[in-house]
């Protein structure tokens, strides 16, 4: 479980996150949604330890991230998997080497053991026999799947995804969503996804947090988001006519 309490972050005196509190549970896909510039990525980078936050606390399974030694931080980092917005695959390495890198960094497995694990996770994301391909030879969807494979290769307890669907066609986006959902259920991990994609919200949003100008404006799930009367949420989620009609039908039917 990840707990955030009164998290605050500012850049050059400008507040980007204002007293954010939330809890993210194991085995659930939690989505952080909001307009561009609402603070989603900053929140994710604070959770990943890439930004130092000003005030508040972040607890991973009850352990405050700020109060632990460097060695314990390394131990915690080995339990974190991350899928970046642009996949962030290493250009100079092939797919196999990309996925193998976290194993090399955190473990002392033999080469054969590492290769077995790499093949196992590549199979899990439906990318068998692509080991020797370079990232530049892979499509956007394939790159995202490699990034997911790299994120789960160390059996993480926490998975963070920053807009995993950006730049993908709707069909591939759904495949990626379902893959993340399945992995979350299968490994019983805490998954936090930053997203703009309304399909993801409706499909896999077991918990949804809506950020606006650095504040937590609303919290709910894919079921309660249809019924909310929070104007900021409805303006953001139901900005298209299609979703407005879907919402009207949902309310009428229920």
């Amino acid at each position: 479980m990840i707990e955030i309490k009164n998290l605050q972050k500012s850049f050059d005196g400008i507040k980007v996150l204002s007293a954010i509190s939330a809890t993210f549970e194991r085995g659930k896909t939690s989505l952080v949604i909001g307009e561009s510039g609402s603070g989603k990525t900053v929140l994710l980078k604070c959770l990943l330890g890439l930004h130092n936050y000003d005030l508040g606390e972040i607890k991973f399974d009850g352990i405050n991230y700020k109060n632990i030694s460097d060695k314990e931080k390394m131990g915690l980092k080995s339990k974190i998997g991350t899928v970046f917005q642009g996949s962030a695959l290493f250009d100079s390495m092939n797919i196999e080497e990309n996925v193998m890198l976290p194993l090399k960094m955190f473990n002392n497995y033999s080469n054969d053991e590492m290769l077995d694990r790499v093949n196992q996770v590549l199979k899990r994301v439906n990318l068998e026999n692509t080991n020797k391909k370079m990232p530049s030879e892979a499509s956007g969807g394939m790159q995202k799947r490699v990034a997911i494979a790299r994120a789960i290769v160390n059996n993480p307890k926490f998975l963070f995804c920053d807009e995993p669907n950006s730049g993908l066609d709707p069909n591939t986006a759904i495949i990626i969503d379902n893959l993340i959902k399945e992995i979350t259920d299968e490994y019983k991990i805490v998954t936090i996804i930053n997203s703009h994609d309304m399909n993801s919200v409706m499909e896999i949003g077991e918990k949804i947090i809506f950020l606006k100008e650095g504040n937590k404006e609303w919290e709910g799930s894919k079921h309660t988001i249809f019924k909310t009367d929070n104007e900021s949420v409805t303006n953001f989620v139901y900005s298209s006519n299609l979703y407005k009609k879907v919402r009207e039908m949902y309310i009428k039917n229920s």
Partner: protein
Amino acid sequence: MIFFHNIGLYFTMLKKMFDKPTKWSVMRQLIIKDTEDTVVNSLGIISFVSFFIGGVITIQMALNMTGSLYPKYLIGFATREIIILEFAPTIISIIMAGKVGSFITSSIGSMRVTEQIDALEVMGVNSINYLVFPKVIAMLLYPFLISVAMFLGMLGGMAACIYGGYSTVDNFITGIQTEFIPFHMTYAFIKTFVFGLIIATVPSFHGYYMKGGALEVGKASTTSFIWTCVCIIILNYILTQILLG
């Protein structure tokens, strides 16, 4: 103010380079790859430039020593002095600042833009050690490159001398051997070693701390080339004053 901040940041980067080292099995591969990228792949251009510039130096020396009072072996002597003292260590380093320096800045800068550096940090990797340290180790082989430049520069000079009819082979070789001061080689290699560290670290600094997108990667490469040249030229003056002054 930003200038002093950047100098502080540069030395902080150098210190962080030795914190939390990357596993040796991974580091070894990085060193081999960076040696190939920086030193081995520069061998061709350095050989080409050295041979022809050596030839040009010799021709210009010969054309400026037309009087009967000048012994012909002075052409070889002057060529050797210019190549060992300045051309090979300093001018080649400026060429390397352009070739290798901009490669280092753009490759690390691209990694920054595409969040690859963030990905390393999230994996618990000291990204400065991972990215900069192997380049510094690779550049320890830089004196080898400069030795090649010295040899080919003098060879080019000899070829130009013979084919241009400015002097004989014997005269040129006599000139090369005349009043040779071994400390000049030490001086040249001390400079080379220092310039090698500059070529590895200054462009890395500009790539690592760059902000923005693809356009800024290009700008960072240009800025890194300028600052690498400035550092090389200033250090060249200081080292020459200390070692030869």
